[in-house]
């Protein structure tokens, strides 16, 4: 686990960092689990609503798979790779605060089946991801904190 500006970045994850997007991806067999990173949840603030595309929805890379609202931020969560939604996390839809309190655990958002597997190789790993995050955290002056439930 790497920690930068108080933001945690687990070593075993892949990362999608483009424009306003900072999401993580965990490879689980044929599927991928996707969620918001620590700096993404910090930037959003206490998340009040999340809407996730239902299972079966096909999405291209960079198209929204969910929308998140916090009262101070409203935006999309983009698909890190092209794929089909296998499962939306209904727990997080009922309790969006999980995105803040447990972003790498119970706060996951969707499971995807990638339809363009080479895109997975384009996701950032370890040192490459960390270097990119360091730039963004510095630029946007982000220090991570976890809202209490």
């Amino acid at each position, binding site marked *: 686990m790497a920690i930068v500006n108080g933001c945690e970045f687990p070593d075993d994850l892949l990362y999608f960092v483009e*424009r*306003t997007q900072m999401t993580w991806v965990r490879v689980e067999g044929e599927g991928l689990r996707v969620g918001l990173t620590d700096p993404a949840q910090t930037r959003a603030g206490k998340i009040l609503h999340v*809407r996730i*595309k*239902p*299972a*079966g*929805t*096909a*999405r291209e890379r960079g*198209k*929204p798979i969910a*929308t998140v*609202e916090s*009262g*101070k*931020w*409203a*935006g*999309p969560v983009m698909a890190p790779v092209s794929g*089909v939604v296998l499962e939306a996390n209904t727990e997080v839809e009922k309790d969006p605060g999980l995105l803040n309190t447990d972003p790498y655990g119970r706060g996951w958002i969707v499971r995807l089946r990638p*339809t363009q597997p080479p895109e997975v190789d384009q996701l950032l790993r370890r040192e490459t991801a960390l270097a990119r995050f360091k730039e963004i955290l510095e630029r946007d002056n982000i220090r991570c904190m976890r809202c209490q439930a």
Partner: protein
Amino acid sequence: MSPEAPPSGPEGKRILMIMTTGPEDPDKTYAPFYTAALMAAMEIETTMYFLMHAPELLRKGAAEKVPLKKGGNLKMFIDMARENGVKFLACAESCRDLCGIAEEDLIEGVQLVGSATLADLALEADSVISF
């Protein structure tokens, strides 16, 4: 639903938001931009049309001077709406006759249009929301 279906929600629909409030009433400025940002994130084609005193909000440096009760100022919400892809159109007549704003005084990405455009947009939109 078939195993691989395109999204079947609001994606691709069009919403026109008509904005008439300017910096004279800060409490009425934030929600339209926030809502527009959210709609755009939902892949709704979202256009905000600014007329009467509303174009004042798009004057360079103006949003930073609109304080919000929740803290901060209006600029972050305008930026968020733009980042999410909301289109900003300003009424040329309002800019010229009411606000005294020239095109070069407006923030980047704002298009000046005539009143007839409002009629076209309203007729083409799936829904029109007025603030």
